[in-house]
């Protein structure tokens, strides 16, 4: 059955949704229409319901109370899986070990005869422009290629609408460029795309219409007014007062399991109070570099000196803080207060000192009202703040952050960034910040370096 190019693929009327424990509806009276070959961008702050709406549209509504109508065009309704949903992190969605098996996963679920699968898989891979053999291991694909495999995995099931949940959170500029080209081709083939993205700049050229979830559950027509990337007005940081070296690395090299250098000849010096950004595309070894600097991984060559000694994690307790990309995974206590006081207790501070320090941190982060709340029940953005507060409470001299803004909206990113810069200035704390977005500006940083071609160079 052919699709009418004018008629909508899908129509949603008066949709609402409330999570079981929530007082307010996360979606209220949402109306929308999706036309074939159009690309829509759904924006809104973290926690405003973008992913919830995406899940409802794809028939995967979470547990909760929902209402409203969802109507598909007849040609779409007859398809087994008319709506494809690609979630944020490609790595947790790759369920098979080879490209062929991965793309065929949906066909297996649809009960397609095995003999018919290879041809359909090849067609889907051609549609996403990925010339890989069926037995190519998915683990050896770049992040951008993994994303395209996932799109192929939905196209093979004849999806007419693709929903992509925050592709920018994981893809580097190269991956986003590949995605933009692919979306152009998919639109031309009549496939509709819904991007749930609060940082859509790299994909602006393919977006036809913006929608915004306002935070009160309402969906409004949107208009892209500019960058949501943290910018703000920062005083130009000066290196003039920075003298004491905290970290010194010389001719550092690291070899992967295959014996190849991930990077080599890396040298860097970080002074007390200095803020350094290390950018690089996915897979260039930024996290590995942080691990080597802290002594969790042994480099294959070179030397590191940190806080006047060798990089031994035991020696660095309380003096160096570390936050990985998913900071909330470090939360384990029953209340925010206990979470923040954990490191202070381990430092052996007196109870009164701990109580005073925790109050200061809670106040400094503006989260006093969350003190007795369970960290596990907070919103994504709040968990981020609590994890950061817990790491900063002991007053580290150096903080290492691995892509700390991934998944945060512009407002939260700005909030986290302002807190960090203020803390760094006030406590003379040095900072190393890694990012997969080399093209962003980092006006608050003293130095920006780039990991490229296995070398660390000035950006």
């Amino acid at each position, binding site marked *: 059955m052919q699709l009418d190019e004018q008629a909508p693929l899908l129509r949603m009327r008066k949709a609402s949704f409330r999570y079981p424990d929530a007082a307010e509806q996360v979606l209220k009276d949402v109306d929308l229409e999706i036309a074939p070959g159009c690309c829509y961008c759904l924006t809104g702050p973290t926690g405003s319901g973008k992913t919830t709406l995406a899940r409802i549209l794809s028939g995967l509504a979470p547990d909760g109370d929902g209402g409203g109508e969802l109507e598909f065009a007849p040609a779409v309704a007859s398809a*087994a899986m008319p709506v494809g949903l690609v979630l944020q992190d490609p790595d947790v*969605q790759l369920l*098979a070990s*080879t490209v*062929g098996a991965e793309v065929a996963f949906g066909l297996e679920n649809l009960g397609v005869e095995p003999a018919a699968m290879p041809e359909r898989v090849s067609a889907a891979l051609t549609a996403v422009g990925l010339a890989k053999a069926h037995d190519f291991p998915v683990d050896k694909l770049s992040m951008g290629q993994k994303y395209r495999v996932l799109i192929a995995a939905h196209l093979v099931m004849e999806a007419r609408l693709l929903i992509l949940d925050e592709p920018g959170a994981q893809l580097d500029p190269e991956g986003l460029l590949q995605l933009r080209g692919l979306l152009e081709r998919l639109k031309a083939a009549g496939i509709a795309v819904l991007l749930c993205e609060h940082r859509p700049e790299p994909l602006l050229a393919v977006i036809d219409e913006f929608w915004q979830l306002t935070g009160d559950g309402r969906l409004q027509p949107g208009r892209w007014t500019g960058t949501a990337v943290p910018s703000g007005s920062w005083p130009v940081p000066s290196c003039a007062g920075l003298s004491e070296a905290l970290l010194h690395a010389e001719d550092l090299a690291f070899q992967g399991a295959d014996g190849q250098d991930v990077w080599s000849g890396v040298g860097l010096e970080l002074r007390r109070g200095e803020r350094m950004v290390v950018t690089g595309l996915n897979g260039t070894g930024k996290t590995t570099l942080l691990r080597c600097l802290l002594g969790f991984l042994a480099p294959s060559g070179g030397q590191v000196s940190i806080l006047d000694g060798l990089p031994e994690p035991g020696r660095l307790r309380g003096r*160096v803080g570390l936050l990985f990309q998913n900071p909330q995974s470090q939360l*384990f206590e029953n209340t925010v207060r206990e979470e923040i006081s954990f490191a202070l207790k381990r*430092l052996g501070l007196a109870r009164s000192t701990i109580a005073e320090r925790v109050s200061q941190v809670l106040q400094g982060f503006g989260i006093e009202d969350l003190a007795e709340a369970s960290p596990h029940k907070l919103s994504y953005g709040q968990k981020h703040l609590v994890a950061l507060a817990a*790491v900063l409470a002991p007053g*580290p001299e150096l903080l290492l952050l691995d892509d700390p803004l991934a998944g945060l909206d512009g407002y939260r990113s700005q909030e986290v960034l302002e807190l960090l810069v203020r803390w760094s200035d006030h406590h003379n704390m040095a900072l190393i910040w890694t990012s997969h977005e080399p093209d962003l500006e980092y006006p608050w940083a003293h130095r920006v370096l780039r990991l490229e071609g296995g070398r660390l160079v000035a950006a």
Partner: protein
Amino acid sequence: MGSRMPAAQGRLAQGGTRDDGIGRRMIVVMVLSCLAFLARRVEQLLLLTGINAVAIFWLHRGPLSLRREMRTFAWQTAIILGLHLFRFRTMAGLWLGFKVSWQLFLALLPGMVFARTASQSGIVRVLTRVMPGRAAFVLSTCMRFIPRLLGEIKNIYEGQVLRGARILPRDLVRPWHWADLLHCVVVPAVVQGMALAGHIALAARARGFERFPRRTCWPGE
């Protein structure tokens, strides 16, 4: 003139799919693991170690570096010897601990090598012969995501060490520090594991998993 199917292509299994000898390898792995629990005497353990060496060569179809497995074995041995020394305080106790560790290693090694050398889709194809397709998928997916979960646990561990948790190997020599390991690493790891399972399940459902009663199987590469 008749043509012969290349050995690597393997034989056709149910529904026209190939199993690449994975079924046979899986049976050998299970038998070897079971034998490890039956072997009590040193001669038996030595003989089984030799058989394992040959089997590993066969499983991998060539020599294989066992550096990672040997590191795991070294850790396991150190922990078991420590516990036996704590319990028995004699050389005989230590020897008993070493034999237990050796047995455990021989029980786990074939499975570890098999997981490294067999393709996931091949394992699913074989498992679907003895269990429902969905259960086979869940089992093989669990195996696939173990390294990812271990990576997450590593992140948690490193972050907590710098927050002051007494969980470095030298700290864990003192049993009263084990509470930190449970509290700061195991609890968040369980939470992360559950979250990861939720994401994987959602990704699978987004591609029609459990939507239809019958599930077929990718025929192989």
